[in-house]
């Protein structure tokens, strides 16, 4: 019998999370090591899935199916295609990194690591769902751990506001999406939530046009689509480090991915009809996000808004509906996930030592944490789409897709490249170079070995993809080819 890798991937963190809650709170060491062991196992499984995924055969693989509520046509149905297997890998990497960089958490550590595990389970679940109901279920599963973690461990000043805003926005989004999901279920007449069957349902043009925005925008809110992006910076900034990493790194991709899977893939004609609007909104994301990032005075807000800017490119890629654009969107989801997780990890490391995030109160940190500077510079170069780094490899196909469909958006979005370069270089200079203010000096120590492993590992991965794009592209293309078939064209 085949080993149910995906089920282990999804259920192991869930189980660990529950076991953790049952442990006595004092067993700090056990709690940490158990979380790390779980994160390591999920990481290894995600690598295994990525490596063994058959790129030539493409399609959905590692499928597992079990009836759950047959009356409603709901089943436990998991499997991955080229895009989701890449995203599982990204999530696996970020969960492991998140555990490593917040290893020292001692305030209610049991609950902290437990919630982190629930969150991990939720994202692994969304990416692997082949059942629409189940996708929605895992999507919603993340809300509580997210809210609680922000409110309990977030930065004291804004955590209540940030947590509440995030939850309300996402709740609104999921209600809207749910309406769309139910409409799809009833219209199909198939009495099933099976995505593979729904994909082939052939919805009418009118229906697609009407209901597409519900699903796409509903889920897209979690992807940070303009003008519903404002939860993102506030939420990211209020959250504790590992949650910021997962929120910006993985959760935003969960939103975009759900919009892709349930919106674009089920209602392709709806996407075609609404593509111009999506392009306009996404282009605003890209340019507006970059400009707003430039004027921030808080280190973490810069990164928060930069995520808004970069996620815009993912949506542009979707809306082009071209093989290049979709491939680029897949690459960008992966690349941005790794990059922004690295950014937030470094912001967290800096904050833990300097106890401030204000750019004007930081400076000269490279003397104390050279590896952090290295990681931030690499992340920055990815962020500005510098050739030789994964960001360029991801952005170029998106721009090419845009040229084929909406050339104006390629031209306008490109403005963000220079703006991004400006704010990244300014932040690098203010935080890492120059004089160190006396006020923060006492706390400055070098990073731990765990932190260094995370920063160097994530940086090297982005460089590797930048230099050898074929590590990742063929897998993503395998996923895209299926979408192109659904779109009814070569």
């Amino acid at each position: 019998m085949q080993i149910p890798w995906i089920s282990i991937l999804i259920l192991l963190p869930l189980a660990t999370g529950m076991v953790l809650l049952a442990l006595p709170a004092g067993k700090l060491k056990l709690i940490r090591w158990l979380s790390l062991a779980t994160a390591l196992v999920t990481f290894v499984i995600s690598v295994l899935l990525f490596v063994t995924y058959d790129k030539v055969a493409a399609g959905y693989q590692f499928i597992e199916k079990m009836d759950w509520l047959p009356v409603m046509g709901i089943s436990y149905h998991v499997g991955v295609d080229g895009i989701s297997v890449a995203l599982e890998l990204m999530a696996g990497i970020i969960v492991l990194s998140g555990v490593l960089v917040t290893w020292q958490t001692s305030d209610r550590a049991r609950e902290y690591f437990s919630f982190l595990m629930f969150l991990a389970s939720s994202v692994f679940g969304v990416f692997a769902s082949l059942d629409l109901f189940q996708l929605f279920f895992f999507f919603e599963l993340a809300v509580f751990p997210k809210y609680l973690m922000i409110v309990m461990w977030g930065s004291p000043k804004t955590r209540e506001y940030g947590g509440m805003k995030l939850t309300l926005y996402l709740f609104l989004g999921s209600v809207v999406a749910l309406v769309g999901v139910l409409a799809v279920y009833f219209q199909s007449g198939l009495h099933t939530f099976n995505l593979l069957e729904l994909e082939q349902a052939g919805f009418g043009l009118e229906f697609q046009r009407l209901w597409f925005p519900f699903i796409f925008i509903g889920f897209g809110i979690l992807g940070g689509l303009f003008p519903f992006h404002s939860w993102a910076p506030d939420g990211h900034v209020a959250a504790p480090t590992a949650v910021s990493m997962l929120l910006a790194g993985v959760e935003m991709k969960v939103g975009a991915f759900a919009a892709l899977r349930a919106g674009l893939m089920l209602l392709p004609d709806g996407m075609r009809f609404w593509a111009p609007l999506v392009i306009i909104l996404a282009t605003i994301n890209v340019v507006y996000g970059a400009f707003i990032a430039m004027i921030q005075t808080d280190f973490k807000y810069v990164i928060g808004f930069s995520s808004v800017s970069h996620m815009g490119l993912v949506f542009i890629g979707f809306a082009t509906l071209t093989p290049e654009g979709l491939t680029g969107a897949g690459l960008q989801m992966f690349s941005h996930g790794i990059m922004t997780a690295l950014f937030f990890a470094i912001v967290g490391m800096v904050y833990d030592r300097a106890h401030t995030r204000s750019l004007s109160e930081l400076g000269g940190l490279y003397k104390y944490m050279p590896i952090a500077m290295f990681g931030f510079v690499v992340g920055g170069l990815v962020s500005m789409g510098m050739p030789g780094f994964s960001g360029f490899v991801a952005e170029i196909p998106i721009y090419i897709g845009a040229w084929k469909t909406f050339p104006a958006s390629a031209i306008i979005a490109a403005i963000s490249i220079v703006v991004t370069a400006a704010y990244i270089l300014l932040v690098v200079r203010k935080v890492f170079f120059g004089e160190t203010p006396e006020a923060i000096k006492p706390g400055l120590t070098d990073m731990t070995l765990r932190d260094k492993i995370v920063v160097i590992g994530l940086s090297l991965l982005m460089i590797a993809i930048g230099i050898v794009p074929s590590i990742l592209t063929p897998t993503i293309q395998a996923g895209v080819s299926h979408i192109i078939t659904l779109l009814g064209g070569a």
Partner: protein
Amino acid sequence: MRIEPTILLMITFLPALGGLLMLTLPAKKTNLLRWSALAVSLIPLALTAWLWFAFDRNSTEIFQFQTQLAWFDAIHSSLHFGIDGISLTMILLTTLLTPLAILTAFNIKDHIKTFMILFLLLETGMLGVFVSLDLLLFFVFWEIGLVPMYFLINQWGGEKRNYASLKFILFTMGGSLGLLLAIQMIGVVSGTFDLVAILRSWPGLTTGMLFGLQIATVKAIAFWAFVIAFAVKVPVWPFHTWLPDAHTEAPTAGSMILAGVLLKLGAYGFLRLVLPLFPAESHTYAVWLGALAVAAIVFGAFSAAGQKDFKRLVAYSSINHMGFVVLAIAAAAYVGGSSDEALRQSATIAVNGAVLQMFNHGLSAAGMFFLVGVLYDKTHTRLLENFGGLFAILPVYGSILLFMSMASLGLPGLNGFVSEFMIVRGTWPIFTAFTVISMIGLLFSGVYVLKALKLVLHGPLNEQWAGKVNEISTREIIVVTPLILLILSIGIWPAWIVEVINQAVMAWL
């Protein structure tokens, strides 16, 4: 195994590979770091020397030593390398100047390891531009060199290094934004980024609609996007303002490479991409480009003459000298496609002169920046008024400075004269008025060079230096000797290099 198919890969990537290996060396062992960086940078030079002799000067093939590997299949971009005579000349310049700059940087004290590694990465970036036969790859290398250069200026530069480095990178990135978009657009229209394939299809595309616009309009926009990107890099007036700041604030070795090689990337872009891809647009707008070149020559010379800071003076002189390169390119652009045999011959001479001028300016500008750096290390000032009469106490240094200044001025018998003469001879029948005006600029380059020499070397000795400054060191003489030898050899017998350049010019003109 035969060496031909891999030689370009080796030349391009060995510096970066060596740089990465240097990461494993301990940061404290400064001497080991210095010598290993120098050793790494000598390998591409040796390989280039081999390449120089193996290169077929009579070939009618445009590109030799081609090699193609898969890179980014999803968007039809591959690792396609190949060279012609123009690229070979530029590769020689790069592989020659890099070891010299590294040797110059032996006096760097802080973070020597990072400095050397960045320098080797920079070399790979520059070489990559010259060997790329794929548009996207060209852009990759074009941009990637910016990163090490930014940090070289930002970390090891002078007082205003923050301002200068940010200005440098934003100007260049801003300039290349249009280039990036235009490259994407050409890639989408052609279905490939392979330069050889695009050269076959793109220029012939003259009728029809693209993106809802007339194809001529689209091409004109793309043409200007290319031109602006390269004009910022050269730099052509009025896009030059980043240059004096960047050059002045950069560490000496950085200035040598910046003036010696990076500026050539812009001119190379004109020759490799703009003229072959946009012959019709080049012809239409050549006069404008020529006018900008003349402005660069004249204003560059005047500005140089007005400087108080020795390094800034040399920086402005680069604008002046590179103006001649652009003028020659504009002339060739104007003639392109014409059937008049005499004009075509003039254009051939002009382009040969332009490439030779690129090489020559690389030598003399690197030499001048080096000498300014040597003086600064001894005196910690660059203000011309603080010097005076130094010839009396520094005879060897003084003689070398005199020689280098004469090369820069274009004294007959030295290299600058040959190339400037070829350019003037080539452009005269095409842009007579421009040529006349620019020769007046040539006169002013005499003025600023002599002004600098007078203030530094001659006049009464500034007593504060008596007994305090040492003569030029052996290491420094070793740096400058290859430059002097090459300057002399081109001045006396230019044929050894012109025959290589001419292969390329004949192949595509």
